[in-house]
């Protein structure tokens, strides 16, 4: 099958989803991100790699954290960055996605970072642009959020380097979560032997086992002896109809408390992609506790996005 993310030499050209990417490319991104993590700790947190390039963040759907970390990542690579909240600009005047993109290409954009509520939006743009332009999916509908998946596995690898020996639990609204999908693909591709999903039946896709995960409906059984607990946000804004009785009821069954976390290994780490609903999927004492690596995830997000952008920019065909 022709993979739209890779060029004819098998090099990464766009980052659209983790699904279909070989382990070698994931490892290259994570290893490169290690070097960028060091850059972020220096006096001058910048390298000249993308000097003269223009990166356009087009966010058809709001996201403060993802947009900010992409912006900082591009700036620390010395690129020029423009961020468009398209929901509040031309799109509301009726311009199509491709018209927006073509206008930015006319302004000599070199890279697009795209977030859209519609699955496949980034693929659509990637098919449209010329060979010297790169597209990064910053979240499309329920489908994929590859840089979040990558920064999550980067965080896990930093705290638990023995990836082939880990038991990881992903807890919560898997059905509506593009993050969960990207995490599952990243973890299985990197050889994590046991990935569990813990959620009520109503928040799991019907074919979830096909992704290579073990399914649990009960936190007490599912968290037993895990090394990593990855919480998902309860996607209120994607929840149409009554999949859940109430937020309080959900917290009682699937909210991560100190008591439930005690079932995991004593050195287990707790992750959350943000933004958190405290008291809904995670208790404040856990979110702020000493097993939480939620803020390091944000820090590493910049290094991982720098790695992705520089690898893509480096794989540009000569015009």
């Amino acid at each position, binding site marked *: 099958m022709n993979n739209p993310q890779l060029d004819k030499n098998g090099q990464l050209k766009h980052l659209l989803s983790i699904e279909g990417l070989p382990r070698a490319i994931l490892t290259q991104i994570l*290893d*490169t991100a290690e070097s960028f993590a060091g850059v972020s700790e220096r006096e*001058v947190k910048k390298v000249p790699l993308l000097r003269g390039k223009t990166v356009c963040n087009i966010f058809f759907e709001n996201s403060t954290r993802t947009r900010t970390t992409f912006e900082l990542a591009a700036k620390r690579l010395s690129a020029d960055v423009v961020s468009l909240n398209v929901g509040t600009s031309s799109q509301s005047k009726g311009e199509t996605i491709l018209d927006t993109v073509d206008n930015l290409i006319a302004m000599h954009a070199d890279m697009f970072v795209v977030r859209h509520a519609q699955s496949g939006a980034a693929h659509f743009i990637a098919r449209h642009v010329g060979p010297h332009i790169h597209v990064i999916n910053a979240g499309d509908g329920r489908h994929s959020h590859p840089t979040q998946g990558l920064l999550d596995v980067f965080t896990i690898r930093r705290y638990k380097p023995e990836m082939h020996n880990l038991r990881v639990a992903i807890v919560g609204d898997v059905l509506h979560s593009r993050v969960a999908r990207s995490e599952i693909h990243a973890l299985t591709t990197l050889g994590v032997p046991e990935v569990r999903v813990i959620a009520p039946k109503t928040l799991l896709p019907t074919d979830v086992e096909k992704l290579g995960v073990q399914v649990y409906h009960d936190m007490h059984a599912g968290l037993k002896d895990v090394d990593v607990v990855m919480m998902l946000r309860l996607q209120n804004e994607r929840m149409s109809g009554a999949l859940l009785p109430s937020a309080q009821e959900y917290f009682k069954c699937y909210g991560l408390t100190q008591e439930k976390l005690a079932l995991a290994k004593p050195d287990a780490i707790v992750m959350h992609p943000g933004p958190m609903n405290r008291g809904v999927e995670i208790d404040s004492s856990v979110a702020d506790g000493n097993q939480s690596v939620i803020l390091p995830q944000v820090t590493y997000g910049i290094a991982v996005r720098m790695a992705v952008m520089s690898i893509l*920019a480096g794989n*540009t065909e000569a015009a």
Partner: protein
Amino acid sequence: MHLPDAEQLLAKLAEAIRPLLTGSTALVGIHSGGAWLAERLQPLLGEDIPLGTLDISFYRDDFSRIGLHPQIKPSDIPFDVEGSHIILVDDVLYTGRTARAAMNELFDYGRPAKITLVALVDRGGREMPIHAEIVGTTIALDPKQNLELARDAAGKFQLKLTGAA
């Protein structure tokens, strides 16, 4: 072609560097050959001399032509560059582009008082106004040839020449 013994050249470098040492001197090796050399020079010159490594991949001038190197090692500068005297170590000095990139990277850590460039071998062919203060030896090579430092399982250095003369 008979290549000089890299271990002897290393000892020669250490002797030449020793008179330059000051209280603020630090060793920085350029990944990978220069980093190996700096690692070996440190015990010869004094264990209390700070040791760092640079991977100049983010500062190369050919990024837009060849992209990012697939295997990058994190740079590690565990001392304050501001005001320090840096002995910058590379294995083979050729075009001078690597030394240029390494200096740019060092300045993103701080403003050194002085940088002294040291190379095991100067093979000529400079494309930048770069000069090494200390070199182990000078060998004139054809542009088609590639000279690099190799390290065996026991940690012993050897120069390796590949490509047609």
